[in-house]
């Protein structure tokens, strides 16, 4: 529940403390169920006062209810009908490739992604928005409908807890499927290593954009995948049914990095073309730093 301390392995109190005061606000118009921080596409339903909520630093002072302030010495914001709540769809990749944990990384990519998803869910729920969770690999494993109820966080964490990675990443078809299913516009937060065909990924993103979702792509990568630091003959056992490769990594390091950077560049360029936010999330960086950096930039 927002404002409460959640004792769960995906939610580090220290991280959450550092995220205090941050919000995930929609840059675009979103379709909420009820009043919220975000602009609604609907007009004329009510322009009247709906309810109060606590002032948070950064809120627009125009909406401060000065009368209440005069009576109670506490600052509340008036919420009107033209503001609606945000629906944040967290798309969490739970494929086998997300299981990888490099030699110098504290967490596997999946664990890091789970923490990331939990923190975002906490953040969204705390700002009284709704959050949905979709776990997928080669198909959609779980789909938790969006809710703004603070107890919803427990459900999300429980679902993430039960994740058992087995399948292969097939983002394209899944994104198309979800684009059809998620009718209400919101923020699509994709948390994945995206080890899939780039064209397929970008096609899925395009579909989301067609549905007028705002897209945030959190690209979770291990440091070893980005730097390839191995120097002994190594058998690389392919995850997700990919073949094993026995090679001297020193001889291929540059070539590998070139391939990897080309892939990243294509992905970034595709995101930029779709108006999606591309955020590189190295698993060796502290979670709060990644989130606060992005959210601050997003302001």
């Amino acid at each position, binding site marked *: 529940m927002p404002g409460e301390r959640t004792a769960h392995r995906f939610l580090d109190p220290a991280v959450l403390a550092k995220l205090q005061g941050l919000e995930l606000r929609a840059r675009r118009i979103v379709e909420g169920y009820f009043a919220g921080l975000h602009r609604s596409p609907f007009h004329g339903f009510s322009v009247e006062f709906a309810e109060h909520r606590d002032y948070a630093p950064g809120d627009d002072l125009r909406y401060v209810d000065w009368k209440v302030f005069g009576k109670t010495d506490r600052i509340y914001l008036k919420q009107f009908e033209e503001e609606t709540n945000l629906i944040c769809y967290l798309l969490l990749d739970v494929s086998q490739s997300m299981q990888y944990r490099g030699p110098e990384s504290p967490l596997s990519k999946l664990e890091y992604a789970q923490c990331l998803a939990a923190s975002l869910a906490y953040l969204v729920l705390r700002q009284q928005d709704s959050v949905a969770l979709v776990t997928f690999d080669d198909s959609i494993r779980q789909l938790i409908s969006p809710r703004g109820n603070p107890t919803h966080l427990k459900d999300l964490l429980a679902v993430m807890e039960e994740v058992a990675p087995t399948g292969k990443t097939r983002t394209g078809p899944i994104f198309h499927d979800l684009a059809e299913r998620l009718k209400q516009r919101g923020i699509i937060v994709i948390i994945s290593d995206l080890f899939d065909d780039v064209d397929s990924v970008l096609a899925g993103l395009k579909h989301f954009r067609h549905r007028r979702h705002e897209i945030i792509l959190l690209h979770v990568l291990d440091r070893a995948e980005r730097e390839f630091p191995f120097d002994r003959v190594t058998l690389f056992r*392919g995850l997700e049914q*990919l073949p094993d490769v026995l090679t001297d990594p020193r001889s291929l390091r540059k070539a590998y990095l070139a391939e990897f950077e080309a892939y990243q560049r294509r992905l970034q360029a595709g995101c930029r073309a779709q108006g999606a936010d591309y955020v590189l999330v190295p698993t060796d960086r502290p979670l709060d730093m990644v989130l606060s950096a992005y959210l601050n930039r997003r302001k």
Partner: protein
Amino acid sequence: MLPLPLPLLAFGFGHLAMLGWLVAAAAPLIIHLWSRRHHLEIPWAAVEFLVAALEKNARRVQLLQWLLLAARTLVIILVVLAVAEPYAERLGLSYAPSVRTHRMFVLDGSYSMGYRPADMSLFSRAKHLIREIIDGSRQGDAFTLVLLGDPPRAIVGHPTFSKNDFLAELDGITLPDAGGDLAATLRIVLDVLKQVRSEQPALDRHEIYFVTDLGRTTWQPNAGSFSNTLDSPTSLSTGMNQSTWEQLAKLAELIVFDVGLDDAQNTAVTSMTTSESFSVVGRDGVYEAAVRNFGSQPKTKCLVQFLVDNMPIEDRRIDIPAGSEATVRFVHRFNEPGSHVIAARLGNDLLDADDTRWLAISVQQQLRVLCVEGKHNAARYIANALAPDPSSLSMIRVETIHESEFVEFEIKNFDCVFLCNIEQLTPGEIEEIGQYLQQGGGIIMFLGDLVIPERINRAMGSDPNTHASSPSARNDSDRIPLLPVSIGELAPESQYHFDPLEYRHPIIQPFRGHEAAGLLSTPVYRYFRLEIQPNMPQVEVALALDSGDPAIVIAPVHQGHVAVIATAGSLASVDSQTKNPWTVWPVWPSFLPIVRGLLDHTIGGRRDLHNVRVGQPFGEVLSGSNVVQGDKVEVTRPDGTTHVVRLRNGAGQMRWIFEETDRAGVYQAIGGASPDARTQFAVNLDTSESDLAKVMGSDLPSQLTVHKTWMGFDEPIPISVMRPYHIHRRLIYLAILLLFLESYLGWKFGKVVA
């Protein structure tokens, strides 16, 4: 059989089994295979990027891997081959078969190599060493051999590829009794080397081995402390030698095997002489031997034995301090005329060659002197001075003839000829005098009132204006003036006296301290001014006049001696104006000693002809109706071999010359004019080589690599350096290069870019 050479490399494995280390060359391959089997194993998500990189670089990566593997393998192979190479070479398992080496051996043939500190002389050791090197050489190597001697010889001047042929030549070399002319030897070495390089271009490598005792007299002749006969001292490090060393070093590797000892002791008889200018039967002669201790330790009770005609006559024991010379004399009287040899011989000594010295002398019944006078009584006082007692018991028999009879006499039968107041000489007489001087005869010429200077000068070749066109000038030797002076104008009449010139000359020396003996008071009224021939060497003014003009001039001419006295030898020469005699010297007390002195000083030439140095020829000029061109003379050398030489007609004379005088000792000649007569010749060493001091290593040219091969008397020769063509250095360089290549490839391996 000498032991195998010591290991050349400090990290040698000990023997040929080290080639087994070639198996180590498989190590990189094994490590490579092992590492592929014992690899890390990790799950990997980004396999598709790895596969893509692998597909694009597979060929290049594989090539680099092979190159790296090959470089590592090759490094091990090269190092093992380099270390094992010397042993493989010894067993003929060369892995550098294309390299062929020319080995030139310069064997020190100076007689100091005859030093025998143990059961083997240095020369034998040197030959043994060369044999070892030859045995260690490979098929296809070529060999040449030069003897460092005086003169040097190219024993094998054209390269031979047959070890047996070369060793046969080597075995046939005997040590000459001569020194070593390094400069001449180096010239021959350079010539042979250049010739081999041009004729045998297939020979890839050239090595020159100097096997020597590094004697200072040979290697640094101008630095010796005892050098009595060196003609052209040449420094090792300067001048021509330095240039030759540099040329040789550019063309070949220069190696010195030092077979000498550092503190060798040696004693030698350095001279054998007699103070008598002539020897006659029944007259005591004093003979003198000089013995020098060249070592650093004194010699005590050193035995010196005198021999006459090879029969021991007298033994003496003397003490000689280190580095000093002692003189031993003995007296002997010959009872038989003929050719005799006196020798001085040392007792036990480690170098035999210089332990004996010989003196060949001709002992006569009487000394025969011919006096030729231009006018009556011109030789009277001279004959009286020479033979006061004209009986047959006199040592000297004088025959006096008139100038007109001169042409009929065979003056070769006389030991000395006095020309007394001769007016002129015919060409035939001049030719006779020239031949006589070539046979070592002595001519003493007293001038007088009959002498016509222009004619004498022209006839005797002492007139520079007419000499070149002289009909008698047949060759260069004939052009040498027969007189050491040109007879000048007659000095004005006055009373002159002799100036003894500080009694320096041996003829005048007896008057030192005897001023009352009459020399200084001898009056001379007329004399011819003598002008010394400018181009004649060794001209001596024995006596002068107080006017400053020479009174007696003596010089060697050809093999003999000529003395010219400026004034008359009799009272018969008178001034044409005053009718006074030119001088009263013939009746003065100083006349007899000086005439005797002149005789002693001018008749030594014939003895000199019978006593020569090693390498110098000897011979005789014969005359007489029974002498025919082609007649044979048998010469028996000291080693017992007999050589036949033939009489040849040269410059109007019948003569024979024997040139194979490479061994010291007594040579006996039989034949020629008197087939039964035996003439003995003494051939002696130039004893400068007897000084066994060695040249300092720092004085040797820097191009030489010196290896000492004799550490002690009883040790075998440790051949610490065999110089077959070694490629180990190149192998090591190549291995180092490959190590750099391996590092580069390893670096490149990690930098492969798609």
